[in-house]
């Protein structure tokens, strides 16, 4: 309980009012001799965009993998909406409302754009084999509804011209949009975005930033891993700086900018 209070007070001094929706407490993970994450603690408030920054190997993706259940922590706790989620398998963590994208996209390449989105919709009636075998009109109606929802999402993302194109045939920017589309279809409340703008043209980066702000306005919470420092500063409500698996600073973008030691360590490594 002490750790939570500490995090709460950190954020409170920064003037935030929202509840802490995700708490990482003393998270550690090592692989053989390599420490990926050490005693990491931070909190994410609802309705904010929080960014994790740090050079390669700082532990950002490891943190993501720990939060989403792809890795089990050696020690520490992860609490989401008051419930412990560390140690749960990925698909169960997703059920609690946490969703993620992957740096390497992981789209369903040989499925159509529409199928990619439809595969993400939760609670579909035909997803159990017995129900699928039984068939029936209710099933068809459910499928129709979901298909409509899927198309709506694709319209939002301006991918509706490509509904029947195979995912692997899209451009890189479109593929990233599709990845986001899957998250939207999954009705995620808490989104972990792993380098969502890497490899995109400036115009697309702008588009993505707008979409992220729109998601926030719709009540989502976003935890971001980003290399692009400018985007981080522009977009984030809160920034957490990692270095060699440890948190070395956190605060508002302005505070981080003013934090000379951070800029040296961070810029020193990235430049």
């Amino acid at each position, binding site marked *: 309980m002490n750790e939570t209070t500490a995090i709460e007070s950190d954020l409170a001094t920064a003037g935030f009012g929202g509840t802490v929706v995700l708490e990482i407490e003393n998270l550690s993970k090592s692989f053989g001799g390599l420490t990926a994450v050490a005693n990491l603690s931070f909190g994410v408030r609802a309705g904010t965009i929080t960014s994790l920054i740090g050079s390669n190997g700082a532990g950002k993706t490891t943190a993501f993998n720990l939060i989403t259940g792809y890795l089990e922590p050696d020690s520490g706790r992860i609490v989401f909406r008051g419930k412990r989620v560390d140690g749960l398998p990925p*698909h169960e963590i997703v059920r609690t409302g946490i969703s993620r994208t992957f740096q390497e996209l*992981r789209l369903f390449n040989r499925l159509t754009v529409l199928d990619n989105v439809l595969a993400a919709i939760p609670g579909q009636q035909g997803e159990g084999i017995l129900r699928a075998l039984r068939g029936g009109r209710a099933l068809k109606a459910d499928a129709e509804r979901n298909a409509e929802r899927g198309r709506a999402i694709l319209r939002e993302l301006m991918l509706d011209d490509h509904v029947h194109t195979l995912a692997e045939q899209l451009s890189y920017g479109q593929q990233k949009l599709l990845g986001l589309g899957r998250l939207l279809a999954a009705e995620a409340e808490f989104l972990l975005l792993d380098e969502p703008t890497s490899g995109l043209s400036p115009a697309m980066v702008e588009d993505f930033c707008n979409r992220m702000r729109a998601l926030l306005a719709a009540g989502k919470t976003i935890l971001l891993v980003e290399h692009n420092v400018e985007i981080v500063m522009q977009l984030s409500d809160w920034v957490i700086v990692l270095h060699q698996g440890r948190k070395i600073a956190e605060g508002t973008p302005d505070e981080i900018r003013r934090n000379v030691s951070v800029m040296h360590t961070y810029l020193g490594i990235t430049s």
Partner: protein
Amino acid sequence: MDYAIYIGTLIAIYATLAISLNLLVGYTGLISVAQAGVYGIGAYVTALLALHVTNDLLVSLLLSAVAGVLASLIVALPSLRLRNEYFLIATMGFQSIIFALFMNLDVTGGPNGLYNIPAPTLFGFSIKTGLGKFALAAGLAVLCYWLALRVTGSPFGRLLRAVREDQTAVASLGKNVFRVKVSIFIFSAVFTAAAGTMSLTAIDPVAFTLDESIFIITLVIVGGTGNLNGSILAAALLIVLPEIFKFLPIPEAVAPQLRQVLYGLLLVFFTRFRRQGLIGEYRDVLK
């Protein structure tokens, strides 16, 4: 004419086997070579029931399916967490063990197999004629095809293909990959074992070796993974084609080996040059 019916029966049986395996391999990406073992279990359970207990068809089908599913689960449950090639090799191990059981246990008749198996009866009618057996096998094939179509066209079918593409991504969307795999394994096993119930008067364990599993995989590959119609076409083709040998001046002794060479050539050809199979679109399904 009788002979044509017999061939038809074989085609129906192998179409069922190919469709069942296609669901595993083509749609879900689970490459298994244990299906001859499951097929054999269906056959042996039916035969043993008919010899010692009852030859009622429905009972045989039910118990064969149950036995097949159990065997399949024993193979699948521990092996599903293994990566592709290792999963295949694990299934190879299970196939060999099942075959050894057929060959060596007294209850299965050892290397001689089982014979003089009474024909199945359905609601009191004995199914003894070639036509009757054909109707049975064809009925099973049609049922299998119809249900497979339902499965593949459903959201579950979409999940199958998603699992084939990227399991990690499927898990990241909150769907239980393990449940999906086990479900399709069970479905496939039901029909594979049921196929073993068809048209038996004698069983020879040699019919259920690894070679037989490879033959069924060949059917799936030639027909095109992910293509159910292709599986049926391939079954028809690969069973009828060697019959043509009978009309060519090929010595008796060499005919079975020539047939095997043909199958090998088809496997090589389709994996090397035409991975989409006979009638598939070039969607590179088998990668």
